[in-house]
């Protein structure tokens, strides 16, 4: 078994703010034999930063993403281009906004060997600085965890498959044997598509929280987050209006309406209204308490800080708005991603 059995494949497009931290955190991991960065036509200082990093990191290689074939998605094409260049037994797909913990790759490899999984993926710990990150990110991730639970994905007996492209470690021979490059080329959700292809081919997945593996700051500005979840939510939630409708109904009746009822009933009762108003306020409050307790449990299970609970209601409102926006964009048939427009 080689001492450094991992090739990193890191697609980048205009990542001047993040790329240095990501690469430096990978460069010191002894299990990594090479870091293949695929520059997808960056127009900012990314290329210059990569050139400087290459003078101090001998096993860093920078490759240009070629011209994009018709119908292909830029990032997915970059992943496939990088994987083609990689030589090691394991491929680690990751993103520029991820900072890898010391020893993280070693722990991931050990888990892969222990579990016998051909694909190991972790959700990095989330760095959240602003109120809108704290409101939306845990709300969305805990909801997605209901669709794609870690236990279900890691269970070979259950068909559901998912992965997080921020840390996705897969055996190169499995990636090649399953034709994964073709599976992801035209997909916006490259990580889920790859996981599905590998699990459908009969291999095991291991999907788990990864706060000891890596951390990420996904969005620094609200418009970035808005665009990012618009791109991802509709396909993640089932890619049809029936599923989205179900989620919206749950948020409307269980999260948002009780707030309106509580406020209205409390005011009405305060103005001398009958006991009926008090009962209504009490019921609404009870529903909200239960919802918050359930959210607290989900936050703990998904390794989010408990103080995110204060943002539950506003998080639900933004989640609902994002869902609708994503569904409308997909229904209209066009999605924008880093300066490119894709037909969906």
């Amino acid at each position, binding site marked *: 078994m080689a001492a450094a059995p991992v090739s990193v494949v890191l697609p980048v497009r205009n990542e001047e703010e993040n790329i240095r931290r990501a690469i430096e955190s990978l*460069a*010191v991991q*002894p299990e990594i034999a090479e870091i293949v960065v695929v520059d997808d036509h960056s127009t900012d200082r990314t290329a210059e930063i990569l050139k400087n990093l290459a*003078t*101090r*990191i*001998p*096993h860093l290689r920078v490759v240009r993403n070629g011209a994009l074939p018709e119908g292909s998605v830029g990032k997915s094409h970059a992943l496939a281009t990088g994987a083609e260049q990689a030589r090691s037994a394991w491929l680690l797909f990751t993103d520029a906004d991820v900072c890898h913990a010391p020893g993280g790759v070693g722990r991931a490899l050990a888990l892969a060997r222990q579990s016998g999984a051909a694909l190991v993926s972790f959700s990095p710990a989330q760095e959240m600085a602003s109120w809108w990150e704290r409101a939306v990110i845990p709300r969305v991730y805990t909801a997605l965890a209901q669709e794609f639970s870690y236990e279900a994905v890691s269970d070979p007996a259950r068909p559901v498959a998912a992965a997080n492209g921020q840390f996705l470690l897969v055996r190169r021979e499995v990636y090649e044997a399953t034709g994964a490059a073709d599976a992801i080329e035209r997909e916006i959700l490259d990580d889920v598509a790859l996981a599905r292809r590998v699990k459908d081919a009969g291999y095991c997945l291991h999907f788990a929280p990864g706060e000891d593996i890596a951390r990420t700051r996904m969005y620094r500005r609200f418009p970035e987050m808005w665009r990012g979840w618009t791109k991802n939510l509709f396909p993640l939630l089932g890619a049809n209006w029936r599923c989205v409708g179900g989620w919206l109904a749950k948020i409307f009746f269980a999260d948002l309406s009780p707030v309106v009822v509580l406020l209205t009933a409390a005011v009405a009762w305060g103005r001398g209204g009958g006991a009926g108003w008090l009962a209504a306020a009490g019921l609404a409050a009870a529903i909200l308490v239960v919802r918050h307790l359930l959210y607290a449990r989900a936050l703990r299970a998904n390794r989010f800080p408990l103080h995110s609970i204060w943002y539950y209601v506003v998080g639900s409102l933004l989640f609902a708005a994002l869902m609708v926006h994503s569904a409308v964009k997909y229904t209209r048939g066009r999605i924008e991603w880093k300066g490119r427009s894709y037909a969906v």
Partner: protein
Amino acid sequence: MSQEVLLTRRAEFSAAHFYYNPALSAEENERLFGKCANRQGHGHNYTLEVTVAGTPDPRTGMVVDLKELKEILQREVLDLFDHRSLNHEVPLFRDRIPTTENIAVAIWGLLAPQIRKGRLHRVRLYETPDLFVDYYGGGDAG
């Protein structure tokens, strides 16, 4: 004939290292490197002298902007090496033994592309006050 002047800036950093070639046996490593083969590592207070050659600018009288040179040294060398375990934390030494010689050559490689005014003439690295290495860029310097 223009007057070429050599300007030297000194900087210090502390770092740990050990000497070990994984291609050789443990016995061979100990024979070659003695106590330095201990992979727990040992430390040095290095002194680095960077010499730049050039003709003083007629307007400023300077061969190179000293503030800029200091920033380059800090950013390209000290931030990378200072208070680090060279074998473990500096990717340049994953496959190269961090002897004073190899560190000097590595520092040349980091600095030369950044020095645009004047020309990097010599990197001198003291491992101890009694032991230093000079590197002139491998023969392509004037």
